[in-house]
Structure formats: C-alpha cells, structure tokens
C-alpha cells in the first residue's frame, strides 16, 4: 500500500498567485461531467414547464409539441444522474444517498427529488396521457411492439369516455403538481451550489432562482430545436403558429432570466464583498470566452435581439427567415446555457479559496472528465429520445378516437393517419 500511495504524481504549475496546496491538483475536483449534470437537469425541467404551458395554461398554439416536450423531458431525465454517477469516487456506493441519506445535505435530497419527479410526476403523467393510445396501439400493432404497448397499459384497458376523461383530469392534476416539482428539481440543483458559503462565486441566495430561470430558457430552446429537427427529418410542414408561440415564451423567459442574472452581477459589483477582486479578475481573464462571449453575447444578447425584434415585426418577416431566426436563437440559447453551467461549475473552481490565486483548466479529450465522454453523455438523451419518438410519436400509429371524443388537444394534424 505504501508503495502505491507514495507514487510521485508530477504536478505542473497551472496556477497564478497563491492557492491552498490541496487545490493545486492538475484538475478541478468537479469537471466537465458536473457541468453537464445541471445542464441536463435544467433541460428536463424546462421541457416539462413547456409541456405544462399546454396542459395547465391551455396555450393551444403549443399543442403540436406537447408530447414531444414530455418525451424530451423523460429522455433527458433518464440520463440526468449518469454524469453524477460516473464522477463519484465510489459509484458502487451511490445508492447509499437514497438508502442512508444525511438530511442536512442538499445532495442527499437529490435521490428523492429525482425519484419523485421521475416516477410520481413524469412517468405517471405520460402514462395517463398515453394510456388510451396504448390500448388502441396494442390492438393494431403486431409482434413485439404490440406486446410492449400492451404491457404499457399495465392491464388498464378501459377506454370509455368516462375513463378517458378521468385520465385527462388526473394528467392535469399531475401537471399542476409537476410545475412546482420541476422547479424543485432544478432549484435544488442551484441550491447545491448556492449553499456553499465557502465559495463566493457559488454561495448566493439567487443561485436556485437563476438555475430555474435558465432551465426554463434552455428547455424551451431544446423543444424548439427538437421540433424543428423532427419536422425537418420527417419532411413535414412546420406549424409556424406553434413556433411563434414558442419563440414568444422563449423571449420572455430569456428576458426574465437575463434580468435576474444581471441583478446578481449588479449586486456583486455594488457590494464588492471579500473575494470580489479575484472574481473580477476571473470574469475578465479566465472566463472571458465562456462568460462574455458564450453566456452573455451568444446565449443572451443575440437571442434577445433576434427574438425581441420578431415580437415587434413578426408579420413583416417572411416565414422562412422567421424559422431560421427561431432555430438560430434556440441553438444559441442552448450553447449559452451550457456556457453558463460551465461558468458556474468550472468558474467556481478556478480561484483559490484563499482568494489569492487562480487556477487554469484545460478540457481534455479522453478520460472520464474529457470532452469525448461529455459528448457521449450529451448524445445519449437524444438517442433515447429517438427511440421514444419511434415508439410513441410514430407517424404510422393512429391517434385514438377516444382522444378525439374527449377533445384531446394534443393531436397533431399530420399525425392522424386513417387506419
């Protein structure tokens, strides 16, 4: 053991000024994987809020993306814990977080918030929403796929109008519970960072709010992105009214998000508390590209200008240009929010808690914390989503008459195929 533990690890100087000796390691403790964790979780929360706009707030224009938004939330939620798991020193002990939680730890609550959100909210809402379709699809689809639909009904095959109406009602109730749950899910992620008083970059009461708002922004942007890509792949016409509505919500969410983040900065600059100098240096030097360019310009300013101008002069902009502007804005927001997560997670570890020095960080290609792994983890939810779309948003599947009868709002005109 002594021989192993005493192996000399060569440390290249990657810091300026003074950092505590334990901070002088070659990598920050929380690397790219922990950047992805709040990013993915935020996309889940945002996509769910997007779906709730249809269910709870009855925004009819958004109906074409209702199911897509829910499936997006599910696909990303299934992958949300992976970055955390891979980064643990002892992944095999991960279930201890749920089995023997330490209740004063914000991280310990994650297991419960996650389980609640996945099982009590999202899966149940999807099930109530899809049940009558499962019953129908199980009848018309042969083979394994049909068996799957049959299994997914969990034996509840009553599709009488009263039963379907009850499904809709329960789904609506779940949606209402889901909104605070989605806020809880991501607000809690913000609290993990916001509760660290040792770190002036993180320890901030606004952190959970900023996380929730940026989550809503990124989730709507992801829905715009997914919807446009899906219709493009399927060579289907886009519902421009739906796109306009998403663009509007994205714009307002972005404005609120930018306002609160601006307030955070204003407070930091004005109060200029201990550590402000090192934070200022970091924002100017170490995080210049991801903060000023990525988060502020690409992620906020440009989309606000694009989407804002569309709010004013939408009618005089040709449809094709509008579509491109929406797509561009959504993509920039997605990049910008990823940059924001980077700035929080990596930025918080680029200065010493002695407030006397700063560290550097170079994202590697390979390794658990490398960007290849990050790219794989970011692709995984899209792969799951593709499978989900093939199974549950398939163009070859009929949408139930029961849904029609109940005045179900989620029917896409192009999805109704006569059988």
């Amino acid at each position, binding site marked *: 053991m002594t021989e192993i533990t005493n192996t000399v690890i060569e*440390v290249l100087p990657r810091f300026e000024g003074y950092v505590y000796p*334990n901070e002088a390691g070659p990598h920050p403790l929380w690397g790219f994987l922990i950047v992805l964790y709040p990013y993915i979780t935020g996309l889940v929360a945002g996509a769910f809020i997007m779906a709730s706009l249809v269910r709870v707030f009855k925004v009819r224009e958004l109906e074409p993306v209702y199911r897509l938004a829910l499936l997006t939330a599910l696909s990303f939620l299934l992958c949300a814990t992976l970055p955390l798991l891979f980064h643990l020193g002892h992944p095999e002990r991960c279930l201890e977080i749920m089995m*023997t939680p*330490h209740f004063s730890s914000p991280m310990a609550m994650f297991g419960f918030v996650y389980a609640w959100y996945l099982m009590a909210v999202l899966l149940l809402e999807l099930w109530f929403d899809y049940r009558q379709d499962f019953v129908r699809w199980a009848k018309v689809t042969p083979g394994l796929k049909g068996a799957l639909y049959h299994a997914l009904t969990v034996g509840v095959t*009553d599709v009488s109008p009263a039963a379907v109406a009850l499904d809709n009602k329960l789904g609506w109730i779940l949606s209402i519970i889901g909104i605070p749950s989605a806020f809880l899910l991501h607000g809690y992620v913000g609290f993990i960072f916001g509760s660290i008083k*040792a770190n002036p970059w993180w320890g901030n009461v606004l952190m959970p709010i900023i996380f929730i708002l940026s989550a809503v922004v990124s989730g709507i942007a992801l829905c715009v992105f997914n919807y446009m890509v899906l219709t493009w792949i399927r060579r289907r016409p886009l519902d421009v009214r739906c796109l306009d509505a998403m663009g509007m919500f994205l714009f307002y969410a972005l404005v609120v998000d930018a306002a609160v983040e601006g307030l955070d900065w204003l407070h930091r600059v004005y109060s200029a508390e201990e550590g402000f100098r090192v934070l200022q240096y970091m924002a100017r030097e170490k995080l210049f590209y991801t903060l000023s360019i990525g988060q502020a310009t690409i992620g906020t300013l440009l989309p606000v200008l694009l989407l804002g101008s569309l709010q004013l002069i939408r009618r005089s902009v040709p449809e094709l240009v509008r579509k491109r502007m929406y797509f561009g804005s959504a993509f920039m927001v997605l990049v910008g929010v990823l940059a924001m997560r980077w700035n929080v997670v990596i930025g918080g570890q680029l200065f010493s808690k002695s407030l006397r020095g700063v560290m550097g960080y170079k994202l590697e290609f390979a390794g658990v914390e490398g960007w290849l792994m990050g790219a794989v983890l970011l692709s995984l939810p899209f792969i799951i989503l593709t499978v989900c779309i093939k199974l549950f948003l398939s163009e070859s599947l009929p949408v139930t008459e029961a849904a029609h009868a109940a005045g179900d709002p989620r029917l896409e005109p192009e999805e109704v195929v006569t059988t």
Partner: protein
Amino acid sequence: MKTGVSRRNVLGKLGAAFAGIMTATAAKTAKAAVQKVFVSSGAPKGYDPTKHKWLMAIDINKCIGCGLCVEACKKENNVPEGPFFRTWIERYVIPKPKPGSFTTRTEAIVDSPNGGMHGFPEPPVPVGEIEQSFFVPKLCNLCEHSPCVQVCPVGATFDTPDGAVLIDPNYCIGCGFCIQACPYGCRFLNPVTKTAEKCTLCYHRITRGLKPACVEVCPSEARIFGDLKNPVPDDPIKKFYENNRVQVLKPHLGTEPRVSYAGMDKEVR
C-alpha cells in the same frame, strides 16, 4: 371495456410499492445509525469518546517553517505524494511599503511549496525590503458548525463527541461535496482510495494516549495539543489561552473553528 384491473387498483399497488421502498430506506437508515456507533475510526477497543475533548492551537510566533510537521503527517497517515495535505505551512512575506506610497501595509506574498514539507526557498523579495515575515501552520479547523459535515450526502463525515471531525472511508462515496464546502482547503480526494481525507488529529494516536504526529515532531512547540476534559498539570492548552489573544480563520463564515491562532495577521486567510 371493463376489466378487473382498474386505475385505482394500479395506483394502489404503485403506492404500496413506494411505501415499501420508503420502509426499506428507513430500515437501512436505522441500520446505518447503529453501524455508526461501531464505525472504524482507528480508536482502540474500550476508548470512550465522551470522556475526552481534544483541541489543537497554533502559536504563529513560534513556527519556524521547518516543515517537519508536514513530513511527519504524510508519513504517519500514509498521505499520497503530490498536492494532498492533511496539514501544511504557509509563508507570509509582507514587503515594506514603497517610500512615498503613504500606505502602512502592502499585500502579503504567500507561498507553500509542496506544503512547506521541505522548508522554504529564499524569500521572494530581498531581505532588506521585508517588513514582516511569518509562517502559519494549517490543519482541519475542527469547526463547531462544520460545513463539510453538513453537506455530506451519506453522513460519512461526522463530528465525534471528543472534538474530532472524522471520515468513514468505508462509507464515503467520493462525491467531493465536503471538499468544496470546506472554506479552509483542508480536504482532498485521496487518489488511491478515491475517498475524501483530512486531518483526524491522528485519531489512532491520540486515542492511545499519544500526541498527533505533527505535535510530536514540532521543535518549537508552535502546535499546542491537549484534552480539555483531562487537563494535565501546567496544561499547555490552558496556558495558551491564558497568555495569548487568539483569532480563528475566516470567522465571518460562522463555522466557529475550534482551532485558535495566536499572533495572527489580517493577511492570513
């Protein structure tokens, strides 16, 4: 179509399954609480933590920066080479203010090459230009309100009744949250065991009546160690508090460190 399986039925079963999971959780929590009593802390059989209250204090005026304590700690506790330290020494060099600058103090130049384990090189400014220079040994601050204990998701790090803050290496999941939460940079993730690690006051030694390794080797008695519940005649800890005005590190964070420093300058963080 009516079937025997109703929504109520299914929801009931789901509820029962959820209740089952919660019960299992509660049972495991209780089991873990029991296990905690028998946690492997390195203490010998029969050691009663409620009969002691260990404490360390640092007299900055006495530290000569030799680094023996750092080396002793690394050897005693099998701390890996590299940027991993349970204790370390910082050197503060405060240059004289430039003539005509009308300032009383310039910012300190701080360093701790390899934790100060092999002493320190020549000072970064010529000796004639130094106004003050001193060494500050650092270790776990044994906070009354330890942020590291607060944030541990599984309770692997905990306060002992005798004043130490320990980590159960068989329980730590290696998430690093405690390392982020410690304002003093006292914790690190052991690259071999992949668990968090920090100063334990040499728990395996003090519970056998020995002093911590760093205290044992300190040639200038800059590190003062004692048991508040069992004071010896002419108790060093008692004397330390009688003779010095003391300060703690980062008091504004409200962690209430139990490790006090005598002769501390405002530059020390």
